[in-house]
């Protein structure tokens, strides 16, 4: 396993990644008979209790779906994320964060084009009598969801007003609710790229065609959820961040898609139409409401032979959603802050997609951390999501909550807390005053600098470094040896 970086770069499909995970003890096959409800949910939730080491689970014996395969938890643990990034199991979250942050803006995209006739995703094609239930072994993800959801779909679309612009092609993860055999609703908000495109298509009366990719290159699922600029291509970004080529082909309706995806659903927006959608157990750990959402009609389905339907358990955390997007929520905020403030040393926005974030910063002057916090609120992700911000000094590791609590306990005065009322808020935040509007909280847990009269306390400096790390490891080994 010394070639982990090369092996990670050679991944071009979900199948490649599942093989790598299996070789590393990070994927298992569940072949006992299991009912879609509640069996699949129960197993997915049980696995996600181990955020550090949970394996991906491939089901191949779901009652009523003979011969069909379902994968959950592919990105469901930090060990799986480590392997995707070419790092060994046991790599710390802090190390993974700096692995991602170090790749930011540092690599070239490598995009190759595969003719449609040679693309694995088009091995099987359905254009008549489409029934999504024939293809997808779906199940109710949380018990009061309004229907059967596709929770891990990478949806590709072209800008309806600028369809030839590769950069304005959007790839994003959106939740889809199946609405009968050949229809689904898609939930988005106006600030998301897909929301903008739907509103533009409906305003101008032009078609909006999409391709829903399921069971994808594992790098895309990670990086398509990253908040980057509207005119940046998620494919280019994913390729650059993986340091590896991405193979694209065309869907039947003319959209660039991954050539090696398991399943692609081609569909067209029904202009101006809405259908009841939800509830859905969302990432804050609560159900969304019931709303009227845009509806898409399926025009064709392509899939590989013997396809694997990849889905996600999402609900009250920790879940795969947190490990899937946590680091890639944190890294862009870090990079964007450092453009103005190189004093920022790390960003931990792992919690509920950044509803709580912890930022470590070297205070340039008294009160500086508050200035940095306000800048964080104006980053693309911060505008809607960063609700609670905890600012800590650079000597505090924001990924170590014991250290963060120490900073809160010893470096926070009650008047170091700022509440910004009635700010924009992500609509599914259950604590919002009204959906879409809520308060922001900044807690400055950094130390005091002149002209503050208190100044920095005389701190105890416990021993740290390689010698202590080695001793810690030896103690653990002695302990394990004593147990065996």
């Amino acid at each position, binding site marked *: 396993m010394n070639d982990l970086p090369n092996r990670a770069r050679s991944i071009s499909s979900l199948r490649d990644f599942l093989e790598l995970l299996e070789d590393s003890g990070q994927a298992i096959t569940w072949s006992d008979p299991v009912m879609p409800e509640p069996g699949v949910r129960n197993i997915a939730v049980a696995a996600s209790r181990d955020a550090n080491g949970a394996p991906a689970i491939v089901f191949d014996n779901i009652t009523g779906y003979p011969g069909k395969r379902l994968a959950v938890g592919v990105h469901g643990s930090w060990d799986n994320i480590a392997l995707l990034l070419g790092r060994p199991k046991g790599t710390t979250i802090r190390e993974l964060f700096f692995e991602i942050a170090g790749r930011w803006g540092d690599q070239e995209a490598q995009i190759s084009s595969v003719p449609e006739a040679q693309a694995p995703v088009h091995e099987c094609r359905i254009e008549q009598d489409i029934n999504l239930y024939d293809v997808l072994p779906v199940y*109710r993800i949380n*018990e009061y969801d309004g229907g059967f959801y596709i929770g891990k779909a990478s949806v590709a679309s072209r800008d309806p007003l600028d369809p030839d612009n590769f950069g304005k092609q959007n790839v994003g993860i959106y939740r889809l609710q199946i609405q009968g055999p050949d229809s689904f609703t898609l939930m988005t908000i106006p600030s998301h790229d897909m929301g903008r495109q739907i509103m533009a298509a409906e305003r101008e009366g032009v078609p909006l065609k999409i391709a829903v990719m399921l069971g994808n290159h594992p790098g895309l699922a990670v990086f398509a959820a990253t908040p980057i600029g509207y005119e940046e291509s998620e494919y280019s970004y994913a390729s650059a961040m993986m340091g590896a080529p991405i193979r694209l082909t065309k869907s039947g309706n003319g959209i660039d898609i991954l050539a090696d995806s398991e399943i692609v659903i081609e569909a067209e927006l029904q202009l101006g139409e809405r259908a009841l959608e939800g509830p859905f157990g969302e990432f804050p750990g609560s159900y969304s409401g019931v*709303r009227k959402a845009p509806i898409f009609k399926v025009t064709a389905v392509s899939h590989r032979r013997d396809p694997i339907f990849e889905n996600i358990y999402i609900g009250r955390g920790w879940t795969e959603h947190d490990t899937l997007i946590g680091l890639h929520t944190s890294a862009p905020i870090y990079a964007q802050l450092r453009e103005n403030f190189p004093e920022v040393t790390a960003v931990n926005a792992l919690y509920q997609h950044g509803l709580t974030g912890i930022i470590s910063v070297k205070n340039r002057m008294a009160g500086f951390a508050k200035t940095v916090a306000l800048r964080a609120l104006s980053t693309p992700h911060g505008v809607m999501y960063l609700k609670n911000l905890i600012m800590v000094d650079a000597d505090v590791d924001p990924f170590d909550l014991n250290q963060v609590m120490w900073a809160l306990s010893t470096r926070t005065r009650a008047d170091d807390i700022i509440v910004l009322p009635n700010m924009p808020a992500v609509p599914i935040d259950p604590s919002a005053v009204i959906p879409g509007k809520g308060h922001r909280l900044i807690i400055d847990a950094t130390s005091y600098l002149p002209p503050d009269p208190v100044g920095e306390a005389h701190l105890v400096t416990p021993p740290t470094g390689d010698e202590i790390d080695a001793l810690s490891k030896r103690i653990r080994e002695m302990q394990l040896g004593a147990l065996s």
Partner: protein
Amino acid sequence: MTTTVCGRCKSSGAVTDHQGRQDGAVVWTILRCPTCNFSWRDSEPARAIDPAARSPDFAVDAGDLQRYPKILQQ
């Protein structure tokens, strides 16, 4: 047992979207309510699909569908 009454809004007239088979026999049926768009599988636990057993917090009022907001309005 397959019922055509929606567990969520209690409307009747649900349509069958799919049937799952095992060794040739139907083992469950997926139904959809054309009134509130709830979809369910008749093999699910009663607390998810039986109107008598479901939590009223998750009921949909079939007589007042206007109350549910429309997203992405111009």
